[in-house]
């Protein structure tokens, strides 16, 4: 999570400096989640009180909910955005990650870093959340990680070369610009690394939520 957080800061800076396209909202979200989870695992690295984190992730979840609603309004449930890359799953899954963070704070994070096995139960979860909902979130997060890993080769240089000549961002046959950014004249900044951050985030969140079920 430290790596993801540091990378996210660098990504924001580099994309701005190099003028490359980037999902700044997603990167900021990853940064905040990484810092928050580090604080959960290592209490002395907690930078904000839990209440403030709850507000932050509440805003985060609402922001992506609004994006989801706007997406449906513009492209429908089965459509893709102007780049022919993003589906409704894009904003939705980030809304779920925001909700997952809220769930962690509401349930009460029971783990702390400890000697030996690297984690220990410091007591039962203090919250009264619904474990069924938590399990649902875990499955969504893990499914998102798996599906994103499956699609990661979409953004390999070879595939991007294909999409640049109009073969389409693979798979959907739409002939869109994909991450080559042909439509905007700008290239995306390291899309596979962004996916990797998302996958790491989802797996780590799933793990932390499992500890709280």
């Amino acid at each position, binding site marked *: 999570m430290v790596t993801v957080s540091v990378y996210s800061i660098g990504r924001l800076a580099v994309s701005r400096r190099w003028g490359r396209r980037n999902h700044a909202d997603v990167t900021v979200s990853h940064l905040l989640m990484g810092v928050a989870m580090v604080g959960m695992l290592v209490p002395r690295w907690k930078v904000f009180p839990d209440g403030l984190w709850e507000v932050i992730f509440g805003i985060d979840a609402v922001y992506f909910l609004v994006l989801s609603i706007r997406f449906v309004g513009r492209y429908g449930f089965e459509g893709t955005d102007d780049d022919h890359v993003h589906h409704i799953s894009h904003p939705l899954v980030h809304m779920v990650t925001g909700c997952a963070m809220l769930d962690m704070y509401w349930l009460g994070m029971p783990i702390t870093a400890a000697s030996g096995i690297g984690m220990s139960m410091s007591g039962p979860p203090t919250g009264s959340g619904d474990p069924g909902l938590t399990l649902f979130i875990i499955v969504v997060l893990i499914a998102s990680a798996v599906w994103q890993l499956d699609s990661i080769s979409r953004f390999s240089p070879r595939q991007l070369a294909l999409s640049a000549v109009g073969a389409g961002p693979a*798979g959907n046959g739409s002939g869109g610009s994909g991450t080559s950014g042909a439509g905007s004249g700008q290239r995306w900044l390291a899309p596979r690394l962004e996916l990797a951050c998302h996958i790491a985030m989802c797996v780590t969140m799933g793990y932390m939520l499992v500890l709280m079920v």
Partner: protein
Amino acid sequence: MSGATSLAQATVAGRAEAVSGTRWRAPDGRRTLQLALAVVWLLDGVLQLQPFFFVPGAKGFSGMLGGMAAGNPGFVARSITWNASVVDHHAVATNTAFAFIQIFLGLGIAWRPSARAALGASVIWSVSVWWFGEGLGGVLQGHGNPIAGGPGAVLFYALLAVLLWPSERSGAGRPFVAARAVGTPVAKAIWAVVWSGLALLSLVGSGRSPQGARAVIAGVDEGEPRWLAGIDRHAESMVAHRGLAVAVVLAVICVTVALGVFLPAPAGRVTIGLAIVTAAVIWVVGQNFGMILAGSATDPNSGPLLILLALAYWPRRRRPVSDDSGSDRAPVVATVGGVV
């Protein structure tokens, strides 16, 4: 002008495809089921990281493993006991290894370049876990009741890896996803054997005793949330002293499902649907979602694997297509993600 441009683009694209192999495709029916299998493996790995499994001794993971030895033949019991003792002496190292093996299997199946290797490794790992971790699923002890997860959930991981193997059998069109790798006759035979076996397991051993079904349900409700415990209590009262009737009904359903794959597509869909409903009911009532909500699960048990297996046999609506079309669709929504 535009025609010339298109021709030039097509030529370049063709060259690029020739260099790179194949163009990325959205997941087809088989790939979607592979990804679902990867989700289950990844969930298994994450569950394996729960603190309980790092604890040595009789109340820890090694105690759970050692408990599988009782009732098995001597050579099987000895191998299970040996494995449990190794885990007991190196609880942290072994459990960490087990967890990350499963995580890497999930991620490996999800990442296309490693999917084949990960599926192959998952077969080896599954069979090993079935032997050393599940005591052959309790089959030789008479505890292989399908309601409890018999003959061992992990066997279905291996079976799915084989049926979803990324290769194509030549020959006539394939009526369902599972037939693509092994061929239609073999796939149908596997289905019939699996469900006939489940029918048999529901009738032998402790499952048919008057309190057999009730004991299975009562054994999983501890620590469950109130709504699920309520379902359990209701189910327990329904099946109390009716173990034999429950076993016979389940066996009849399993035999019906086993034969369904040989029926025409419309009737086949009904029986596959019956298989999915049966697996879902078993997963909720008999297995309580693998006891994940009680915080003591190593895996989600056999329910979701049986559902995945059934989806791999869902009759296709469209006529058979060529090998590389990748257009067959299981009734699963394939969410194709973009950049996150």
